[in-house]
Each structure stands twice: as structure tokens, then as C-alpha cells.
């Protein structure tokens, strides 16, 4: 009786943005088609349709900045220990969704199953590694400075503020995690522009963050044309820093010019091997040093 068995209709997922802890569609109502990488196993040189991702507009970027600014006070004011706990919780949630992410990364980057799984594992490990830095970064970025006077002189690192992050274009998940985690672990809040061609792992990361006690607005994820979203972000007066990891040389140049207007901190794009030991450079890139003079013996 196999012929009267009806085939089950798949429930397709509507990928949405992640802004302020919610999942809105683009304000513009636009979407664009996301396809597999051309070299994907089984695709045989043809792009296979995966999903329609939201095509964000500059107004989505503006709303995301408002959400990030609103979240900054609470997130930067949380204890480092608490931030570390929450980030570790994110890793726990990621671990539970390994299969989903391995499939999405495999489709996005054209990797086989085992390679994709290895990339996801590396990303989760990367996240845990950065989570551990939350209460340790002050030890390497801060100091008790020797001064010629009867003062304690202490320098402590503080978060820069709202950071616009252009996620790397090629590494859709490991690269993404490697740019988000170091920015937020120190207390910054972020507006992330996902990889233009492979935004699905990033949009799914939003679902993980929403269920991990991370306050809404700390990470906001937008998908769409990188240049279209990044331009208003770079010029935005309420964005304190911008990470240009996902911008090509030409775009990076124009974004740097726009960012100069309100003296944004800019992290220039550089060739990175995302699987290598990341070091602390990205962690220290979005910190400001506060130095306090305190009279001794009072």
C-alpha cells in the first residue's frame, strides 16, 4: 500500500533579521535568494535555492543601532563574570544545534559533512575561548601604573560602545563567531552585517542568541547587500566603532572616510586565517582605556 502514502510537506523556515531580541522582517519588505555554493557536493555546478533572506535597508540599520544603544548600558554594566556566563550559555545552545549549523555551513560554503561539522566545532570552541576572556581581559589590557607621586594610578579597559561589524564574506560561521564574540565579551553591543552571499548561519545564530539569556539588542544581525547597509552604519553618529572584516578594499576605503566624520574606531580589513589561533587583537580592538588617579593614604 505504498502508493496511497502521501509525502509529507516540508515546513520551510522563514529566515528573519535579529534586532533588539526580536525577529522582524526587513522594514523594506524585500528579500533576496540565497543559494548553495557552486562547488557544493551534489550541486554539480548548479546553484540550489536555499531560502529567501531579508534584504535589509538603511532603516533596518538605523533601528538596529537604536536597539544596540539601548542595550549598551545594561550589557556594559553587567559584571564580567556574568557576561562570561551568558556567553558560555550561548556555546551550550550552539552545541545543541550542531547538526543544523553543520548543514547550513555545508550548504553555504560547499563543504562535505565532516568538514562542515569540524568548522562548527571550531566555531563553538572559539566562542568558549572568547567567553573565558570576559573577566581576564582587564589583566592584560589594564595596569597599575607606576607614577611619581603619592597616587594609585590604575588603567582599566572599558567597552567602546556600539560596534558595527561587517562579518567576513567567505567564512560564514567560524569567521562570524570570531568577529562577534570578541566585540561583545568586553561589553560592547553590536550591529552585525552578515555575509552577503551566505547569511543563513548568521540568521540562525540569532535564534541561538535569543534563547541564551543574552539581553535583546546586544547582538543585532542584518542580512542583505553589505555596501547598502554598511554605508549608513559607517556614517551613523551613534556608532562608536566599525569592524571592516567583510568589506573589500574599495568599500573599506569609502567606509573609512565616512567613519572619520565622528572619529569612529576603525578596524581595517586584513587577510585572516579564521581557523588559526585568533590571539587577542580583536578583543583589544574595541576597548577604551580609563585611567584613574587615586590619592594614596587617604
Amino acid at each position: 500500500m505504498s502508493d496511497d502514502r502521501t509525502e509529507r510537506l516540508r515546513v520551510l523556515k522563514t529566515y528573519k533579521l535579529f534586532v533588539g531580541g526580536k525577529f522582524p522582517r526587513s522594514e523594506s519588505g524585500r528579500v533576496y535568494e540565497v543559494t548553495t555554493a557552486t562547488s557544493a557536493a551534489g550541486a554539480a555546478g548548479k546553484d540550489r535555492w536555499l531560502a529567501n533572506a531579508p534584504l535589509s535597508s538603511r532603516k533596518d540599520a538605523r533601528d538596529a543601532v537604536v536597539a544596540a544603544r539601548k542595550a549598551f548600558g545594561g550589557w556594559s554594566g553587567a559584571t564580567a563574570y556574568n557576561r562570561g556566563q551568558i556567553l558560555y550559555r550561548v556555546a551550550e545552545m550552539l552545541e545543541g544545534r550542531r547538526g543544523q549549523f553543520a548543514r547550513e555551513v555545508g550548504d553555504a560554503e560547499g563543504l562535505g559533512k565532516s568538514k562542515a561539522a569540524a568548522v562548527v566545532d571550531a566555531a563553538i570552541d572559539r566562542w568558549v575561548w572568547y567567553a573565558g576572556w570576559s573577566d581576564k581581559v582587564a589583566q592584560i589590557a589594564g595596569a597599575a601604573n607606576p607614577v611619581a607621586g603619592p597616587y594609585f594610578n590604575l588603567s582599566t579597559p572599558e567597552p567602546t560602545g556600539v560596534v558595527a561589524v561587517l562579518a567576513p564574506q567567505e567564512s560564514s560561521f567560524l569567521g562570524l563567531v570570531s568577529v562577534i564574540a570578541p566585540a561583545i565579551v568586553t561589553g560592547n553591543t553590536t550591529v552585525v552585517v552578515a555575509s552577503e552571499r551566505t547569511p543563513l548561519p548568521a540568521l540562525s545564530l540569532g535564534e541561538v542568541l535569543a534563547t541564551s539569556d543574552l539581553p535583546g539588542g546586544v547582538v543585532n544581525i542584518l542580512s542583505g547587500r553589505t555596501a547598502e547597509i554598511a554605508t549608513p552604519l559607517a556614517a551613523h553618529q551613534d556608532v562608536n566603532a566599525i569592524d571592516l572584516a567583510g568589506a573589500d578594499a574599495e568599500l573599506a576605503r569609502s567606509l573609512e572616510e565616512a567613519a572619520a566624520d565622528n572619529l569612529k574606531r576603525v578596524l581595517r580589513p586584513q587577510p585572516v586565517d579564521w581557523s588559526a589561533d585568533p590571539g587577542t587583537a580583536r578583543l583589544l580592538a574595541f576597548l577604551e582605556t580609563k585611567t584613574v588617579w587615586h590619592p594614596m593614604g587617604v
Partner: protein
Amino acid sequence: MPHKSFPAERPGVTFGYARRYAPLVTMPTTVPAYGAEAAERLASMADVTATDGALRRFLHGLPGVDAVGLQARAAALGTRSIKTTAKAYAIDLAISMIDLTTLEGADTPGKVRALCAKGVSPDPTDRSVPKVAAICVYSDMVATAKQALAEAGGSEVHVASVATAFPSGRAALAVKLADTREAVAAGADEIDMVIDRGAFLSGRYLQVFEEIRQVKEACRRADGSGTAAHLKVIFETGELQTYDNVRRASWLAMLAGADFIKTSTGKVAVNATPPVTLLMLEAVRDFRDTTGVQVGVKPAGGIRTSKDAIKYLVLVNETLGADWLTADWFRFGASSLLNDLLMQRQKLSTGRYSGPDYVTVD
């Protein structure tokens, strides 16, 4: 028992509450509510306010509000897209209509002075920004505000003072009148009074009416100039329960001589909403059609963004037209709205989104 109360039975009186929207006489012009002529026009309505019973019959004879239709109309008017030059015009208009408000227990003379400086020169980096309409403070801060405005070169910015046991309105009438006289004597240009919601909700309309009339009387300046501070009457619509009550309160206040009707104190959970404001705008329109007296409207509380403000301006334009699109006839009671308007203004002039770092913290 003969039916005595119908004014139509009396010779020489052509107005009856049963024909409430019929024009009284041919009215050639509209007169402002604060002018001397307005009192005569209102006197012609004296029959509906003669007794508690007549006033109740009049107010309860007003047509019921279609709540669904009202909300739908307010929502529909909120979808207008106002862009580019129209937006720039609307933003400047909204700034010029703001009653910049600080009504905190923690108000200090320093804070009031800072607010006055901001009202005179909202964006110090851009002198083309218009001044706000008024500074709204508690009555003990009126003198401070008046002086600060004069020093900042903004004497044309009015000082509005809340009075009559703001925000609850729970005090003896003598106290409320004294409160008002003090504020007027200190130099207030406008008085924002609250109605006695307890009396209104328990149906003692004439008491509310008399109170407003007496406060209006107390708004007269004692300097012999014959002028008076303009009276805004706050309904606290969030406490009036129904749209019907808002309509009744609007007519009641306008009949009693209010120069402005105002939605809220900003001190309760529900403040100005577009439907309530639309309802009050319609009441003002009908009141002018009936009596020829022009009354202003002031939504207050909860209006924080430029988008909201522009929606209200659309409501005004669509309901009352250009006659009301000035600071003389429409105001926003707001404090944080100004910063958002300034940020939007900066965005329009520079093309870059602005941020709270570029406006004052207050």
C-alpha cells in the same frame, strides 16, 4: 407638568440642545477663545449651562462616539508618509509647537534655567532651529523661568505653569484659585489646570464647569491691563474611561471658557493617544462650527518621536486645517520629543543618522 426646559419654547432664543450642531446665528468670523468677543458668544450658550440638569442633558445629548471608527480613522491618518521638504517643514513646525516641560519633584532652579536656554536655542550648533512655544513648569518655578528666558533673549517664549493641585486636582477650590493667582502674579503666560475628575466621573458637571470658570477668572492679571493668562484645561483622558466622556469633557471645558483643551498630565499610565486627540480635535471643530469660537488643542505625555509628532500634525491638518497649524492653536506637551526632532533635523541636513551624543541630556 408643562415641559419648561426647552429653550426653543422661549421667544428670542434660537438655540436648543436638541439642535446642538445648528449654527446659532450667521457667524461672520471666528474669534479666538481668549478674546473678549468669545465671552459674548459663550453667553449665548448660557441656557445649556444654567443648571446642573440642563448641562447634563446637553452633554449626554452629544452623539455617542463610534470607537471603532475613531480608532480606524486615527490609525489611517497615521500611515501618511511625510518625506523630504514636507518632513523638514513638519519638524520645524513641531519644534515651534512644543511646550518644553519639566514637572518633577526634583526640579531645581538650575534645571529650569537649563531648560529655558534649550527652549530658546534648541540646537546651539544650528541657529536656524525655531524656538519652542513655551516652557511648562510648576508654579513656584515661573519667576525663575521668566527671568531665565529674558536673559537668554527669548522673551517671546511663553511660560506655562501647571496649577490647581496638579496633577491630581484634589484640593479645595480656594487652594486651586490661590495656586492659579500666584502663578499668574509670578508672570505665567499660560495656566495648565486639571479638572476634578472625581466630580466629572460622578456626574457633577456643573461643579467642574464652575471650577473652570472661576479658574479662568483667576487667570486675569491683577496689573490692571485687562489681559489674562491663557487657560489650558487638562482632562487626564487616561482617567476618563470612555471616549464619550472625553467628548463631554471637551464640550464642558470649551463652554466654560477654556482657551486650550489638553489631554493629559503625563503622570498616569495612559497619556495622549491619536484617537483621543482626534476626538478632541473634532470637538474643537464642532465647537467652532456652533459658536464661532476657536479653541486650541494640546496632546501631552507619551509623544517621544518625530514620527509620532508628525502623525499628530497630520491629524490636525486633516481635521481642522491650516488654521490650527500654528503654535497659537496646537501644542505638544513633551520633554524628550525635542531631542528626537533635533536628531531628525540633523539627519535631514547632514544625511547622517545622528545620535543622543549630539543633543543635550536633560
